[in-house]
């Protein structure tokens, strides 16, 4: 693909999200087209983010500056990005599949008359994009037709961009005026205090719907208690059922973790969950379904019912010590 490529940098509170660099890696893999990183923001934060992006990637950066851009807003992002790219021009716009990315991409695609493909996990040789459907049971290859295309890249599917560039890219900072908007971003509320100990945990034991009921969380907690530095995680499905609070959630919009050992209990392995834990050191999966997607990324696979297997495991552990 040698059409011009634009990577939209995503950031929260002055920090570039690491997934932005994964989108840069994706764009590098995709083709040789002229690349530009676009970053929107305000004040000195914007300049330092623009410099960081150009130094880390060697790619030219266009930075758009205005006070009202201190917070993300799809409406203003759409207007500005359309202004930079131009309507109807062939272009490839890449961004990470984080909350701002999937919020923006389809809306931007409508404004640019572009194709929109979300949650991309791989690129195939015929320039099709691979994405998962049906909780990872099916892979679909899809190819945009001629014209502009907006793509979101599944977090964790590409490594962050870490080839130190020979030289920084150029940085262009442009100021814009605030247009009238029908959506106004007011503030970012910090998450309610939570310390699940995910960052300190050597071992995270996580529960999926496959554990069957809230009562069975006892097994998960018992297993976690075996390790001196451990934490209990969960899939969104488990949180939706009210079995555990959302602060336990691992995956897209939840926590992203990479402990030394991750034990997935009764987790089928939907991509939304995998993207939050796939960089764990050792992944052990316990699931009754030998075809569960989780087994495709696990280091060790155990086909058992967690509710009977964990008590046996604890019993054997007692016997050993």
């Amino acid at each position, binding site marked *: 693909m040698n059409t011009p490529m634009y990577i939209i940098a995503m950031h*929260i509170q002055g920090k570039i*999200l690491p997934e932005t660099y994964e989108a840069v890696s994706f764009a590098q893999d995709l083709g040789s087209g002229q690349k530009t990183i676009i970053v929107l923001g305000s004040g000195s934060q914007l300049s330092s983010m623009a410099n960081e992006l150009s130094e880390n990637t060697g790619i030219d950066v266009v930075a758009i500056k205005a006070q009202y851009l201190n*917070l993300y807003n799809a409406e203003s992002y759409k207007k500005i990005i359309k202004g930079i790219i131009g309507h109807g021009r062939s272009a490839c716009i890449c961004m990470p599949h*984080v*909350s*701002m990315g*999937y*919020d923006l991409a*389809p809306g931007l*695609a*409508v404004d640019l008359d572009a*194709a*929109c*493909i*979300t*949650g991309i996990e791989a690129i*195939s040789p015929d320039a*099709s994009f691979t994405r*998962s*459907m*049906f*909780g990872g*049971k*099916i*892979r*679909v*290859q*899809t*190819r945009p*037709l001629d*014209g502009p295309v907006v793509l979101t890249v599944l977090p964790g599917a590409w490594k962050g961009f870490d080839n130190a560039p020979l030289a920084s890219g150029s940085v262009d900072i442009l100021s814009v005026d605030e247009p009238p908007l029908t*959506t106004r*971003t*007011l*503030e*970012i509320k910090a*998450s309610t205090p*939570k310390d699940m100990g995910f960052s300190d945990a050597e*071992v995270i034991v996580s529960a999926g719907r496959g554990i069957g009921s809230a009562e069975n969380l006892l097994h998960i907690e018992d297993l976690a208690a075996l390790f001196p530095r451990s934490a209990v995680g969960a899939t*969104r499905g488990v949180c939706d059922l009210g079995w555990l609070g959302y*602060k336990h959630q691992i995956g897209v*919009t*939840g*926590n*992203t973790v990479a402990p*030394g*050992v991750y034990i997935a209990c009764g987790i089928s392995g939907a991509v*939304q969950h995998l993207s939050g834990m796939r960089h764990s050191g050792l992944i*052990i999966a316990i699931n009754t379904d*030998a075809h569960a997607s989780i*087994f*495709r990324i696990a*280091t*060790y*696979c155990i086909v058992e019912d967690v509710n009977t*297997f964990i008590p*046996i*495991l604890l019993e*054997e552990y007692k016997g*050993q010590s």
Partner: protein
Amino acid sequence: MPYHVYMKSHVARGVRILVCVKQVLDSAETVSIDETATDETATWIRFEPGTVFRMNRFDEFAVQEALRIRESIPGSVIDALSLGPDRVKKTILKALEMGADNGVHIPVETKKYILPYMRASMIAEYAQNRHYDLILTGIMAEDDMECQVGQLLAGILGLPYATSVIYQDIEANKGTIYVEKEIEEGRRECMDIDLPALITVQSGINTPGYPSLSNVLRARGQQIEVMEPSRCADRMDREVITGVSYPSAGVSGTFIDGSPQEKANALLDILHKNAVL
């Protein structure tokens, strides 16, 4: 009169809500690729007779949120819409049983996967001149997990939108809706949006209730409005499906075999070797 100007004067009488609900394959079902298709672009999933379908869970939250709004603003009306083959009427019925006022079916008979842009175009065609104050749908469909139809629909209709909404407070007489969106690591992005607007709802915004007996009985006797097949049918898609496959059979990891006790001991060995025990 521009759409949003018309709406502003309209809102005080209760809000007109459209909820878009999708029928999806139950997640416990096996997914089989239709190997009989010859045209590669038509290759999609084969549904055996007796396959279990149900309402996309994220859309259940959207229906429930619509009910909450109607409760707080008397005179509000909820239309529940779904598109697809005849079987999706069951999902529309479910929305009526939950408490929606009217059901709308856009019939689409195809064995192909309906791409998000096509889906959004067909819904837009229906919604265009019907003056909804608020359109609600789930953040994504559980089956294709695209996270697209809501935003595309808003884009086509020229409406402002917010995705992943975990809290809303509609202020109909001000003509605005305040929303909190769930973003990374449990943070919330707070926005004020002019009506008419579209919001996609994140799971956990409410607790979908069980249909009451009176709603079930009312729904049973109710007509579902069936639209003419969409004129969008020949609209060009912007992408083409080039392949559908099962994930590669190759598993990178090692299956631990043996009796449960043997597996347990093997696992304990691994944990010891990795010095976490």
